[in-house]
Each structure stands twice: as C-alpha cells, then as structure tokens.
C-alpha cells in the first residue's frame, strides 16, 4: 500500500494539479489554536507541514521566526507537539503530516524515542533543516524503518553529482528550495529558471514527488502549476501575525487564504 504522502500526490495528480502543502508552526499562537488551524486548513491543503519551533533557527526568515518565538513564549514543548498531531490525526480532518524543524530538538529528545513518538502520534514525514546529506544517512534509514518519510532538501547550490546521490538516497518525496534565501524571501529568481532546475531533478528521478518551497505566495503560486507540489509557509505565518495584530481570528483568515491558494492551482 502506498504511504499517505504518496497517496496525497497521487490524488492531486489525478485532479491534474500540484499538491498544496502548508506550513504552520506548532503552538502558534497557542496549542489549541494551532490545532484548529490545522483542522481548518486541511479542507483545502493536501499535506500539512508542522513546524517544530526552535529559538536559533539558521534558515528561517522573519515571518516564521515570529511564529516560532510566539509558540515558544506560550510554552510549547515537544510532547505538546506530538499531542497536537495526534489530536489532528484522530479527527475527521486528518491529512498527512510532516514535522519540520532543527536537529537539536530531535537530538535532545533522542532519535529513537522521537521516531517512536512520531509513529504513535501519526507523523508521516520529517524535514530536518540542518541535517544535510550525507550526515543524515543513518537517521534517514531509521526513519524508513519506522515507515516515516525522511524528506531530503535540494537547493540551487547543490551540484549535479550531489543531486544524483541525494535523490538516490531519498524516500518518496523531495523538497527543492527555489532560491538562495531564508524562508519568506521575495522571489528573486524567475519561475522559469526555478522550473528548469526542478525539471533537472525530475529527469534524474522521475518517480519521486518533488515539491518546490521558499518564495511561494498567493502572487507567485500559479506560475508553478507544473510541479508535483508547492509549499506555502511564510505567507501563512504572516497572516496569523496580521490577524492577531488586528484582533481577528487567525483560524478563519488562514483558512480563507489557503482556500484561495488552492483555487489558484486548481
């Protein structure tokens, strides 16, 4: 049987559109609210990335940092994050969940214990921003044994030789970072150029589902319709911040935004 992440891609392909992946930070702005956001977003998105907030992130831009600091300030802990995922997965809104974060959080929790909790709560995939290949070989094998997708990242600076090795060691899904940027940067490379690089990856491994992230917003998303999947993160985090500042309900606003995003690629 296909794993839930691959199933989600299969479904979106059938509908002749890229899969929509959202990123929100666990515990932003509270445990309960972040769960409600996941539930409401899942009506429109295909796969949900859940950020594990960390206070020394080396690849996150301002929007995601703000969300992360808010979540940490509100006392989010690793066990709360697993609880949020679990509550989401047993709800009727369940969709595939990918945890995304920095390695120290996994390291302190203990790799094996972390994977056990992932499995128990229903996590389907992991993105570890600062555990690149080949350093991640052992951990990614452990993930596979636990039926959890370890998602390799590729970037415009990744050499062709490296692309080949990394895709060979990757599981069902790979993540292409569109440009040299932290998350939430303005798109500074043309979509055409990004898709060229994307196609290079697809040529090397056509069967793997490849998503594009970084710089994807309401404005840019429709230009990447040919990709297997697209990730929107910072714009959603920004919307949460904006809603809170205007004393509006972020759950409703974020859901609206994701609905719009979905329409643009359908």
């Amino acid at each position, binding site marked *: 049987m296909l794993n839930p992440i691959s199933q989600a891609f299969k479904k979106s392909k059938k509908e002749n559109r890229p899969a929509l992946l959202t990123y929100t930070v666990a515990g932003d702005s509270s445990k309960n609210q972040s769960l409600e956001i996941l539930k409401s977003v899942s009506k429109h998105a295909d796969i949900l990335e859940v950020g594990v907030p*960390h*206070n*020394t*992130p*080396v*690849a*996150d*831009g301002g929007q995601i*940092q703000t969300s992360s*600091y808010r979540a*940490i300030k509100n006392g989010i*802990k*690793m066990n709360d994050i697993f609880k949020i995922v679990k509550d989401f997965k047993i709800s009727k809104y369940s969709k595939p969940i990918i945890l995304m974060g*920095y*390695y*120290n*959080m996994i*390291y*302190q*929790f203990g790799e094996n214990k972390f994977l056990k909790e992932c499995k128990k709560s229903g996590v389907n995939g992991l993105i570890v*921003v*600062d*555990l*690149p*290949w080949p*350093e991640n070989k052992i951990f990614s094998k452990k993930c596979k044994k636990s039926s959890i997708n370890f998602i390799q*990242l*590729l*970037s*415009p*600076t*990744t*050499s062709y030789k*490296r692309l080949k090795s990394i895709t060979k060691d990757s599981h069902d899904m790979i993540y292409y*970072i569109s440009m*040299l*940027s*932290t998350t939430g*940067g303005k798109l500074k490379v043309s979509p055409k150029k990004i898709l060229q690089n994307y196609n290079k990856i697809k040529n090397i491994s056509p069967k793997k589902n490849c998503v594009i992230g970084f710089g994807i917003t309401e404005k840019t998303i429709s230009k990447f319709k040919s990709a297997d999947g697209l990730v929107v993160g910072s714009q959603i985090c920004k919307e949460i911040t904006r809603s809170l500042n205007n004393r509006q309900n972020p759950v409703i606003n974020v859901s609206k935004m994701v609905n719009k995003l979905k329409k643009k690629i359908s």
Partner: protein
Amino acid sequence: MRLKKGIPVIDQGNKFGFWGGKFGGNFVPETLKRPIEDLEIQFNKLKNDKKFIFERDKYFKNWIGTPTRFIKLHNLTKHVNGAQIWSKVVSDANGGAHKIYNATVHCLLARRSGKKVIIGDTGAGYAGKMLSMAAKKFGLKCKIFMGAKDIERQQPNVRAMKKNGADVIPVYSGSQTLVDAVSECMRYWVANCDTTAMCVGSTVGPAIFVRICGWSTSQISRELKVQLIEKFGTVPKKLKLYNCVGGGSSSFGFWNEFMDYDKKQVEFIGVEAGGPAKSKKHAAPLTYGSKIGILHGAAQYVNQNSDGQIEETESISAGLDYPGISPLHCFLKDTKRARYTAASDEEALKAYQIVTKYENLRPSLEPSHAFSVALKEAKKLSKDTIVVINSCGDAYKDKKILEKKLGKKYVKSN
C-alpha cells in the same frame, strides 16, 4: 577520546568535521553545503601554500603589528607573592584585540575567491570592528550583525565599525546578543552565499570556520613560544596559561603551539563567564556541565533547556556572552588537556581594579575574568611557576559599563 600528538588540533577532526567523533560537524542547511565545501577546498590548499603564508605573515607583521608584547607584571607579582605573573598583551595588536587575526585571514581568503562582500557577527564588537578594518584594508564591502543589546553596551566599537564604512545591522530577535547575531549572520549568508563571504567571529560555527579561526589566532602562541625562549632560554618547567573563554578563539590561539607539551609542564586554564553572582544565568557551559547540543552548525556543550531550546546567557562581558563553546574546547576538556573554570561578573570587576591599580595595563572585561582566576591561584603557586595571562582586549570599549559599576575614578582616561 584522544588528542593526537604531532598533528595540529584543527586537523584532528574526522571526515565529517567532528573532533573526538562528536564535537563540531556541519549541521547546516543544504544551501550552505556548497559554499562551505568551496571554502574547505580553498583553505586546505592555502594553509600549506608558502606564498599564502608569506602574504599572511606580511600583513600580520606590517599591518597588525607582530609580535605583541610579552611582559612581566612586577607589581602584581610582588602583590600576589607566589608565582611570577606575566602577560601576553595581545591587545597591542592593531585594533586592540586578537579578533584581527581571524578577520585578516578571512578577508585574504575572500579576496582570493573573488567575493566582493564580507559579513560577520559580533558580540563585544571587536570581531566586527576588526572585520570592518580588514575589509576596508582589502577593498571589500562589509556588513556586521550585532545584537541590539550589545550595540547599546559597546558603543565605542560600533562607532569604529561605522567609521570603517561597515553597515552595522542591529538584530532584535531573541535575547538581542551574540547568539542572535550569529544566527542572523548565517541566515544572511544562506540567502547571499553566491556573492558574499562569511567570517564567523570565533572558533565556532561549521567545522571549517572553527579551523580557519583557530589557525589564525594561533599566531598568539607562535609568538609566545619564541618570547618565552628569549626570556627563559627554554619553555619553562612550570608554565600556566590563563585565558578567558567565550567562543574560545583567543584561548585556543594562546595554547595551540604548546598542545604537545605534557600538561604538568604547560597547563591550560580556560576561564568562562559565570555571570552575576546572584543570577542562575551564566555563559559557562563547560564549567557548569551543560549538555551536548547543536548550535550554529556545530555539536558542542551548550546552555539549553530539556527540550533543546538554547538558553539565554548573562555576563557583564559581551564578548563572553555566548551559550555555546568551540568544539575545540569541548575536545580539550574531554581529553583533559585543558582545565575550565568560571569567574563571576563581580570577580572580573575586582580583578580589573587590582590589575589597573598595580600595573599600567587595562584589560577589558573579558580577560579580567582570566586575571581573576590567575591571581587567586598564583598566590598558592611556587616562585618558579610562570603564570601568563592573555590580555586579549583593551578596556576602552567597556568604559560605559566600568563607569556605571565602579564610578569614574576607576576608569583611566588614556
């Protein structure tokens, strides 16, 4: 875990950049893999290249001013009435601190690789000031990331950076100190690594930065060894080298040439920042038994909570106010080659008062931590023991803090 003899410590990491199999490494986003690899290839080639070393030594000598003085502190020796007290006055170096060595080497590397912009982090402002000086010297544009809190408390260095034409970018995230400045600097590099070189201000960060910095600051111990032989005819039988430890660049450089000596002959004592006596916060991960974690691309002992969030530090000295510590020092601690302890804010201030009272020397708050421990321990040591303290920074930058804590009379105006 063992320290090997005859191989520079910076070259004792394994193929993944781990010292002792577990400290250091490259925990970086995929985007940085390539620029880091490029820098590794460049550095590995150049560190043994005679022309490059000649170039380095030329700038070290004519521009930084080598060697810095090695002096006996006669009055302090008399006052302590134990071991002989000496100091390596590294603050003699152009710019007033050891950070100039690393900054110069990074600018030389950047220039060779055709980069036009160099970025760096800074805490006390020395790393930033030196990088701005070196960038100006070598015709590079310069951006310095500095915590907003540090900008406030280290104004003289901020002014110097601006005067050298650098952009000083205030960092408002987190604790607004060095840890956040390093994060922000790395983030900027992630977004601009195709055109921009990065200089990490200490022996921290991904392995290559640890190595380049250690290689650069080792100038201090190369000079000291020559100077010791000049004064004593040989490396003394009982030599103790005291140095403050924040990220660990000056201490590593102060010790490197003596690594292969038996520790009974040449002992290394690293002094971390214990923070205010009444506070639980500190910047002394080695002294207070912090757990291993990942910070800024490297595995190291680091102050963190049980979840893995990096904890805020507290120290009167901005230059030591860092929750982590160089992988090199983790390695030296676990192989028991060096001994680590801490001095509190109050102890450092007291040591500053004693040193300035007895000697015409004005160590900044960072080396004042080292003086504090050295002077205490020297009392109990024999007269033939040679205690050397690295006075790696000048107190000019700390004027505001010293005036606030001690009153104007303690702050010499020269």
